[in-house]
């Protein structure tokens, strides 16, 4: 029963990367509904995909790139340009969390991707470059510019190590 096995393994993969994809989508979209839509689209596409993945890293890279591309296409779609996105206020239990969250939401999308992968997923610059298919120097540049913007917004209260 290779199909059943494949389906089971895909389910395990979805459960494994579900949190990562959802959080990345949330960091890009800024609201729960859109983040859930993106997450659903990505994993449905993954389930329907007949692509042969060589390794777990390959699957992870594929999922990340599909998520990023899906978020980009969402922002560039004519529907998104003609409508105003949902604004969702999240109440955090500390002021610091709230400041950091809303400061990152104000960053340009390309900076938010690398900031999220670097600080939340603890990926190295090389891994981010590999997963997103861009140069390491590009990742470093975007990280640097994102940090500078965050320092300005957060008034230098945080250490960006």
């Amino acid at each position, binding site marked *: 029963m290779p199909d059943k096995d494949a389906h089971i393994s895909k389910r395990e993969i979805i459960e494994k990367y579900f949190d990562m994809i959802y959080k990345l989508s949330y960091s890009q979209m800024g609201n729960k509904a859109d983040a859930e839509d993106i997450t659903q689209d990505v994993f449905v596409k993954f389930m*329907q995909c007949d692509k042969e993945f060589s390794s777990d890293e390959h699957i992870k890279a594929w999922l990340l790139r599909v998520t990023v591309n899906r978020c980009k296409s969402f922002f560039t779609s004519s529907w998104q340009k003609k409508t105003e996105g949902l604004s969702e206020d*999240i109440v955090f239990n500390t002021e610091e*969390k709230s400041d950091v*969250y809303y400061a990152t939401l104000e960053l340009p999308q390309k900076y938010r991707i690398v900031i*999220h992968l670097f600080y*939340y997923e603890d990926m190295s610059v090389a891994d981010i470059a590999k997963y997103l298919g861009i140069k390491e120097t590009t990742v470093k540049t975007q990280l640097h510019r994102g940090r500078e913007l965050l320092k300005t917004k957060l008034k230098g209260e*945080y*250490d960006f190590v």
Partner: protein
Amino acid sequence: MILFRDTYKSAFKDIEPDSELLSKILVKGLEEKKVIHRKWVYSFGTLAASFALVLCSVIGYMNYTDVNEIPGVVDNSYVRQVSEPYINEIPVENNTVKIAENPTERKENKALKQVISDSPAKQPDPIEKNVDEPVNTDVPSVASHEPMLTSEPSGEAAYSGEENPVQREVSHIEEMPLSDYYQYIGFNVLEKISLPSDFEYSGEDFVPYNKTSDVAMFSFLGDDSRFANISFTKNVEEPAKEDKSTNEYMQINGMYNINKSTDTFSFEILTNINETEVKELADSLTK
């Protein structure tokens, strides 16, 4: 200094997805799989419908197109088709039938400008009729009135369509010796017909003759697969009917003709070049 990494991580850990989102994704992924299969079914159904449509069209074409098909003979040397008779109006003097001047005629046709006479019968009075009807309407009306001769030199029926109603009528054609026919009609037909020099009578000593309709057809073969068919009948008393909606037979001065005008008629002289192009070779005959 607060570490940005720790604060950022704790902030996003507070954000939890809907508890049912994962199960929704799994269910939807399976549903979408079914949709893919359904798409294949739709594609296959569309393909099958298209194939059936094409098949019906082909069958319909094969079964029903020969109703309006022009009867023709496919031979090794030429292809005969019935073309629209050329209609011209030239006065006839002294019961003499002349080949009319056609402005579009070829050089060889000039040889046809010869007086053909010696017919003992009188000419019927010319009657104006409508001549603007299309060509292909000639054939069914001919078939419905009288059988039609082929241009087959041997006198045998050789029509292209098997179900053509004309074909059944043609089976009455038989071969008659030329001398017998000359005696029957009263004059030497071949001597009265003038055609371009490359045209030769193809029937040797016989002529295809239809007893039912009293029609004999003289077939001449020329160079470049051109040919001319001239039909004769002895019936000289019957004028053409004054029916403008259908094409009638006209028999004047021993000349048999299929035409739609009562005062203007023509030899049924046709030519074919390279087995594809049918052209009218001869001029009209006007009484």
